[in-house]
C-alpha cells in the first residue's frame, strides 16, 4: 500500500510473518465458517508431485458440499490440532479416509465436519500447476487405496536413486576426481551474501522459512558458486576465550551439494578458510568431524589436518555421542604461514 510502511508500532506485516500449522488450521476454520476461500502456502511434500513444499494453494470452503473421491482437501488431522492437505481416497462409514499421494500411510478417517475445504488451485513460482482432480483424482485415490501408488512411486524413483548411488561411488574414485577437476568448470569462492545464505538454508532445511543470520565479526561465511548457483558453503569462526572450551579458530559447516562432490569444491572452500585464518593471525585451525566419516577424515588429512585431543572438549564430545552413537573428534592444522606463528 503506497505510503504505508510494512510494519509500524501497531502492526507487523510482510513475508516474514508465517503462521504455524495449528495457526493455519485455526485461520482456515475461521475462513470456512464465513464461507470465504483462503489462499496460503503449504509446507512439506506429502502431496508431491501435485503439491510441493512452499506451493500456494487456494482452499475453497465446502459450503455443505460433501467431499468426493479424489478431492484434495484441507482437514484437521485425527487426534490433533494440525492441518493437512491430502487426498480423499475412500468413504469409511460416515467419514473419509485421507492419504497424501506421497505418504506411505493414510492419515486415518476424518469426519465430514473436520474437512474444512477443498483445494481448487495450486500455484508454484507464480504459475498455476495441474492438481490431478476429477477423474484423474478418483483414479489416483483408487491406486492409493490398493497400494499401487506406492509401488509406482518406488518404480519411478528407482532409476534416480540408483544414479545417485552410482555417482556417490564414482565420487570416491581417484579417476573421477582427477577427471572432474580437469574437465568440470571451476567454482568461484565468494563471501556469502544474504541471498546466498538463504539458498544454503533452503538446501539444508527445505520448507523451513530461512532466518537471517546475525552479523558476527567473529564469523566469516563463504559460498562456492558454479555460475550463479550456490554449490557449497563453509564458515570460519573465531571464538574468543569466553567461548571456552570452543576457543580459537574453527572451520565449521563445510558442505558441498551432492552432485558437485569430488570436483575440488570442498578443497577450494577449505583453502579459503585456511587463508583467511592465516590472514587473521591464527596459529592453528580446528574443526570437528565424525570419527566414522572416513571420507571426511581423509579429505582433511590430505589438507594437513591431524587428530588432536582438546581435554576441555572431551566431556562435551562424549556426551553428544550418547544419543546419536556417533563420536566427533577434533582435527587441527598448524598454520605455519601465520604472521604470529
Amino acid at each position: 500500500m503506497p505510503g504505508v510502511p510494512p510494519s509500524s508500532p501497531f502492526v507487523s506485516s510482510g513475508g516474514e510473518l508465517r503462521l504455524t500449522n495449528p495457526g493455519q488450521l485455526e485461520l482456515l476454520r475461521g475462513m470456512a465458517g464465513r464461507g470465504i476461500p483462503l489462499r496460503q502456502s503449504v509446507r512439506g511434500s506429502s502431496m508431491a508431485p501435485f503439491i510441493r513444499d512452499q506451493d500456494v494453494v487456494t482452499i475453497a470452503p465446502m459450503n455443505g458440499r460433501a467431499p468426493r473421491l479424489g478431492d484434495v482437501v484441507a482437514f484437521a488431522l485425527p487426534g490433533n490440532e494440525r492441518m493437512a492437505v491430502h487426498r480423499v481416497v475412500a468413504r469409511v462409514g460416515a467419514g473419509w479416509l485421507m492419504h497424501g499421494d506421497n505418504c506411505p500411510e493414510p492419515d486415518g478417517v476424518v469426519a465430514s465436519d473436520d474437512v474444512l475445504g477443498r483445494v481448487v488451485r495450486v500455484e508454484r513460482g507464480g504459475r498455476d500447476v495441474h492438481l490431478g482432480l476429477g477423474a484423474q483424482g478418483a483414479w489416483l485415490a483408487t491406486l492409493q487405496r490398493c497400494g499401487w501408488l506406492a509401488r509406482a512411486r518406488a518404480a519411478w524413483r528407482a532409476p534416480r536413486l540408483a544414479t545417485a548411488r552410482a555417482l556417490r561411488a564414482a565420487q570416491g574414485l581417484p579417476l573421477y576426481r582427477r577427471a572432474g577437476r580437469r574437465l568440470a568448470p571451476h567454482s568461484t569462492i565468494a563471501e556469502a551474501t544474504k541471498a546466498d545464505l538463504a539458498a544454503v538454508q533452503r538446501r539444508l532445511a527445505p520448507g523451513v522459512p530461512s532466518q537471517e543470520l546475525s552479523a558476527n565479526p567473529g564469523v566469516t561465511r563463504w559460498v562456492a558458486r558454479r555460475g550463479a548457483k550456490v554449490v557449497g558453503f563453509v564458515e570460519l569462526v573465531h571464538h574468543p576465550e569466553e567461548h571456552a572450551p570452543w576457543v580459537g579458530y574453527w572451520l565449521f559447516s563445510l558442505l558441498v551439494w551432492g552432485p558437485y562432490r569430488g570436483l575440488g569444491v570442498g578443497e577450494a572452500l577449505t583453502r579459503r578458510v585456511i587463508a583467511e585464518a592465516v590472514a587473521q593471525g591464527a596459529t592453528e585451525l580446528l574443526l570437528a568431524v565424525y570419527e566414522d566419516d572416513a571420507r571426511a577424515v581423509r579429505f582433511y588429512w590430505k589438507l594437513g589436518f591431524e587428530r588432536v585431543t582438546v581435554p576441555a572438549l572431551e566431556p562435551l564430545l562424549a556426551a553428544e555421542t550418547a544419543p546419536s552413537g556417533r563420536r566427533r573428534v577434533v582435527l587441527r592444522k598448524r598454520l605455519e604461514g601465520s604472521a604470529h606463528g
Partner: protein
Amino acid sequence: MATQVTLDTVCVPSDDVVAREIEGEIVIVPLVAGIGDADDELYTLNDTGKAIWQKLDGERTLADVVAALAQEFAASQAALEADVLGFAAEMTQRGILAAKA
C-alpha cells in the same frame, strides 16, 4: 485518499479483511477478489494495536476506546489519544478499518 479519523469516529473492521485471534495474536488477512490471501500479505497487531483493536466493538467511538483503555493502562490521556488516533488512521489507510457510516 486522505484518511480522516477523529475521536468521534466509530471504527469497524473493513469488509475487505478477515480478522481472527490465533495463538494469542490478532491475525488480519486481506481479501483479494473475495479470497483471503494469507500468502502475500498477512498482518498481526503488536501489543498496542491489539489492546486498541479489542476495544473496537462497532459501537464505541474512538473517544470511548481511549476511556476504556485509560481504565486498564497507566498512561496519560494525551498519550492514549495519540495512540488510538494514530492506530485508527493507519488502519484505515491500510484498508483494515473503516469508519462506520
